[in-house]
């Protein structure tokens, strides 16, 4: 994407609340029209701050935010025409659902007939036709969530911001709402900037994910890319489960490198983010990419492992083994007919491909 077709653009944005620490450090981010972009990161990493700067409730200490080609640093929030869903929904408690939905239309001076038609359409959209006359307090959490969504969409903004909108819902409802939001996004074609610290939510919903840590975007990529090819130790760690093995780069050859572990083994890994021969590195390996009962020689990396613990998870059996001096090495053994049955205390051979073992910066 070139900067010309970006719909939202952060360039060199910094933010400090207290003049001492930077909460957002040099944010550069282009968001394409119609994109579903998620900001994902641990608590306190500056996601909400970025969203608030975009919505206009916080001013950027430095840098520029551009919306649809216009710099908006000095545009007040009510003129930005950005829909927003707040974490606690912020539905006006003294208004009925219908009045809540009519509010953004009325303040835009729309005439009565139009307002009621649009409110009706919006209620239909979120399947709350019969709840229009209720107060928010008389709705369940999921229904309130939908009203908040409808209210953010009813005035047809091109950009919608959502700050952990599903945080207050239980797991099942949250998953249902994830699909609902995703489908609405696809149907309406709006640009969505979504904030969450739930990685599975980010993976299922987004076109692209920006992983935040400590005020910096660690990696901006599609969900698949992020999971399959994390570019640094933080991302590998944060997205999905991940075995971490520290070692030292012994030899580099092209795409690959050989890493020596403190216990003496030599692991062949994909060279992703290493500083050179002799430097420390962190090997990242997904638990589901490890083969158990591997024949020696069938894979580039095969090591002896002692089974420590088995945890039954239904679809897979989580197996903790001791390998290469690491006690907390996790393997997911899929629960399918004929899978290897291990027992605690047993010794087996485990192995993995070079491509699945990524040598990253030693964070």
């Amino acid at each position: 994407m070139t900067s010309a077709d970006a719909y939202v653009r952060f360039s060199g944005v910094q933010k400090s609340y207290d003049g001492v620490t930077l909460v957002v450090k040099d944010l550069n981010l282009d968001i394409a029209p119609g994109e579903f972009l998620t900001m994902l990161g641990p608590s306190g990493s500056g996601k909400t701050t970025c969203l608030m700067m975009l919505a206009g409730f916080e001013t950027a200490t430095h840098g520029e935010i551009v919306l649809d080609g216009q710099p908006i640093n000095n545009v007040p929030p009510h003129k930005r025409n950005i829909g927003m869903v707040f974490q606690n929904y912020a539905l006006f408690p003294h208004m009925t659902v219908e009045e809540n939905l009519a509010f953004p239309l009325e303040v835009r001076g729309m005439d009565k007939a139009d307002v009621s038609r649009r409110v009706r359409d919006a209620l239909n959209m979120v399947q709350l036709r019969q709840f229009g006359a209720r107060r928010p307090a008389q709705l369940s959490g999921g229904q309130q969530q939908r009203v908040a969504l409808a209210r953010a969409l009813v005035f047809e903004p091109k950009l919608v911001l959502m700050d952990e909108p599903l945080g207050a819902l239980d797991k099942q409802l949250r998953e249902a709402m994830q699909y609902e939001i995703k489908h609405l996004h696809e149907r309406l074609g709006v640009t969505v900037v979504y904030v969450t610290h739930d990685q599975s939510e980010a993976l299922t919903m987004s076109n692209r994910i920006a992983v935040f840590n400590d005020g910096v975007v660690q990696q901006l990529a599609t969900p698949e890319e992020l999971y399959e090819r994390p570019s640094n130790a933080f991302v590998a760690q944060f997205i999905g489960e991940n075995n971490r093995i520290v070692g030292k780069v012994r030899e580099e050859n092209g795409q690959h490198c050989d890493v020596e572990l403190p216990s003496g083994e030599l692991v062949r890994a994909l060279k992703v983010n290493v500083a050179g021969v002799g430097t420390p590195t962190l090997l990242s390996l997904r638990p589901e990419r490890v083969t158990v009962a591997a024949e020696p020689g069938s894979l580039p990396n095969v090591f002896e492992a002692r089974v420590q613990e088995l945890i039954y998870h239904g679809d897979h059996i989580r197996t903790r083994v001791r390998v290469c001096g690491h006690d907390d090495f996790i393997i997911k053994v899929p629960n399918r007919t004929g899978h290897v049955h291990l027992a605690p205390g047993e010794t087996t051979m485990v192995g993995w491909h070079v491509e699945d073992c990524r040598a990253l910066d030693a964070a």
Partner: protein
Amino acid sequence: MATTTLGDIAATRPVATTEALRTADGMPLRTKLERSMRMARLRAFFLVAPLLAFIVFSFLVPVGKMLWLGVYEPTFANYMPRTAAALQTWDTRDLPSEETFAIFVDELIAARESRDLGKVASRVNREFSGARSLLTATGRRAADFAGPDAKQALIAHDATWGRTELWQGMTVAARSVTPAFYLNAVDLRLNADGTVRAQDADRRLHLALFWRTLWLSALITGLCLLLGFPVAYLLATLPMRYSNLLMILVLLPFWTSLLVRTTAWIALLQSQGVVNDSLVAIGIISDTNRLSMIYNQAGTVIAMTHILLPFMILPLYSVMKTIPPSYMRAARSLGANGFTAFRRVYLPQTVPGIGAGSLLVFILAVGYYITPALVGGQSGQLISNIIAFHMQSTLNWSLAAALGGVLLAGVLILYWTYNRLIGIDNIKLG
């Protein structure tokens, strides 16, 4: 069945309701529930019983007594029972009979001997001006008038005894249970025949005072709201360390004596006071045109607004504290400018606080006594000052009680109106 119509639903409904539900031991559910609730209710009653007793003895009994005092004044009937009885049968048009005069003179002598004549005289004086001196003067020579021709003797002694108005006044005073005081409280008078007329023009002052009290209380409430709203907003939104300091400033007046604060206003506002001196010094007003801001209505309004302000701020603050800032943000993100967001989203949510604060300030102001007494001068007196006057100076407790009763009724009517318009359950005191 493919479709269910509303009719189907209606048809199946009554079956379910006519069959009374029973518990496992066959007792009707309703009875069982009633029984299990009775214990809980009884326990709750014993828990609140001490408080209930306290309220009955410290509040309901005195208030009831006061309301009763407003319609019950037995002085005349106590000391001149036979005259009182005779006057009840009088036709109130021509002068009472010879017999009535004779009975009256007998009882006049008796009352004078038991030194109770003064009380009777004061009571009659309230219905007929000048009756006090007439009764005491006549009482001194009462023995001279005794006899069958008491009527002529009395009239010869003082022609006033021949006026029907005097005897009508005495007839009104003779009734122990009487609406006379409540009528007086609203500037009306009771005639001896039970009809009602307007109070004499020069004695009409209660209604004007009631109106002044209501109007000044409303004004003070309005001023408190105007001044208190921004302070409460700041209290609720400022960072903790500033808001704590502000809270102390708001509460500070509570730690100072009411008398001291009122006196401080005198020092500030009097014609040689700080405010006038400063205004003269900077040349806004000339030395001869000093503003009179105290010992008049302005003094009452200023001092009472200051004293009642915390009662407005605290309920407002407690409501505003619970309004998360995200509502205003949401309103603005939806396209409302700051003012619209405030008016349509913030303000409506503070209504319970505005209602509570206003009701509190208004009710306190309506019954306020000490501040108007100290700084109100003549034009700043409120109804409570005249009540105190009747309690302490004229000793007309029944009129004081009637005035209090009318005030109570007025406040209750306001409360009822408020409840109808806004809803009392919309009030939040903390």
